[in-house]
């Protein structure tokens, strides 16, 4: 980092401030008006609205209601994109082998002890924001990303060997991930199956009852709104994102000994 670069960067940010000052003085475009799109307004109004039971999803968090109820199919395909990227990394590094019994190294005792205390608390926090995704800010993806921090901490502090010792293998994680994806599909087609049995009309990804179908997922548990299928989707999404990110972290932190075969195999093909 040279002093000249810092000066240029500072003058660049001053340029931004001066341009915005000029536009402000001239009085051009208006930003942050009180008006929002009518679609967003209707989402805000109907997301938790017991008086319109055909439109509501009983979720206090509007973003989570949009993600898993109003635009559920979109999010499902996004989850499959994550799966596809893991499979793409597998094909790139094909032929690697996991050597389980190498000597672990890791950092000093101070760091290890501090990490040991922090890990259960991170697990509790991640599960808290995932299971309360319909009540407070948070949801499946947030919880999964927070849980994946644990595996990155373990790789950084205890080394990859400790993950193998705890029973993590990338193939097992991919299997868990596939099972959770199937679970997500089962939750999505449950209303369809119930409608088929009862011989009434019902839809895929249906959450609450609609105008022409009375089938609905459970909306309350004890004293808090469960928001129907949103809770189940959040739990499955937590596991999917956690296993996906952990698999990618493990594959990208493989040692040279383990990767040697993968690159040798490729040379033979060429």
């Amino acid at each position, binding site marked *: *980092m040279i002093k000249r670069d810092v000066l240029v960067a500072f003058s660049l940010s001053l340029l931004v401030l001066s341009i915005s000052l000029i536009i402000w003085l001239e009085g051009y475009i208006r930003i942050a008006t009180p008006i929002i799109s009518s679609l967003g307004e209707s989402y805000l109004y109907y997301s938790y609205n017991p008086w319109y039971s055909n439109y509501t999803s009983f979720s206090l968090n509007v973003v989570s209601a949009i993600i898993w109820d109003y635009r559920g199919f979109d999010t499902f395909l996004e989850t499959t994109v994550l799966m596809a990227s893991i499979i793409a990394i597998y094909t790139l590094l094909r032929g690697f082998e996991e050597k389980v019994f190498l000597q672990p190294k890791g950092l000093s005792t101070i760091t290890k002890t501090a990490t040991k205390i922090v890990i259960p608390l991170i697990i509790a926090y991640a599960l808290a924001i995932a299971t309360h995704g319909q009540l407070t800010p948070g949801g499946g993806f947030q919880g999964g990303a927070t849980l994946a921090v644990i595996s990155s901490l373990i790789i950084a502090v205890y080394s990859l060997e400790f993950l193998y010792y705890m029973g993590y293998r990338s193939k097992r994680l991919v299997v868990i991930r596939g099972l959770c994806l199937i679970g997500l599909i089962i939750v999505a087609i449950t209303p369809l199956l119930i409608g088929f049995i009862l011989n009434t009309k019902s839809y895929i990804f249906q959450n609450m009852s609609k105008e022409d179908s009375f089938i609905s997922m459970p909306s309350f548990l004890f004293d808090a709104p469960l928001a129907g299928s949103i809770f189940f989707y959040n739990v499955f999404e937590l596991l999917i994102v956690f296993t996906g990110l952990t698999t990618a972290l493990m594959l990208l932190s493989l040692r040279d000994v383990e990767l040697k075969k993968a690159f040798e195999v490729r040379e033979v093909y060429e």
Partner: protein
Amino acid sequence: MNIVVLPYLLVIICSLTSTFLAYLIVKERNLVVAILLLLGQGIFHSLLYYLLMAPDLFITYIPVSVGITPLLLFLLIKKTEWREYD
């Protein structure tokens, strides 16, 4: 009249710092320093998400930008090279 100034002042400071760090990241030759600067920019971005009233994105962005992306980049640099040649 009720005047709220502090959040708007923070929005200005965060966005200007983001531009400042962006130029330094592009110009930096040592990739380890570049990743550390990217991490700092991520902190300011997550503060902006909070100021723009998106708590969901705030919770998502902190583990992604401070935990996972830098670790992936550090792993990549450890396996390849940590300096940029012209």
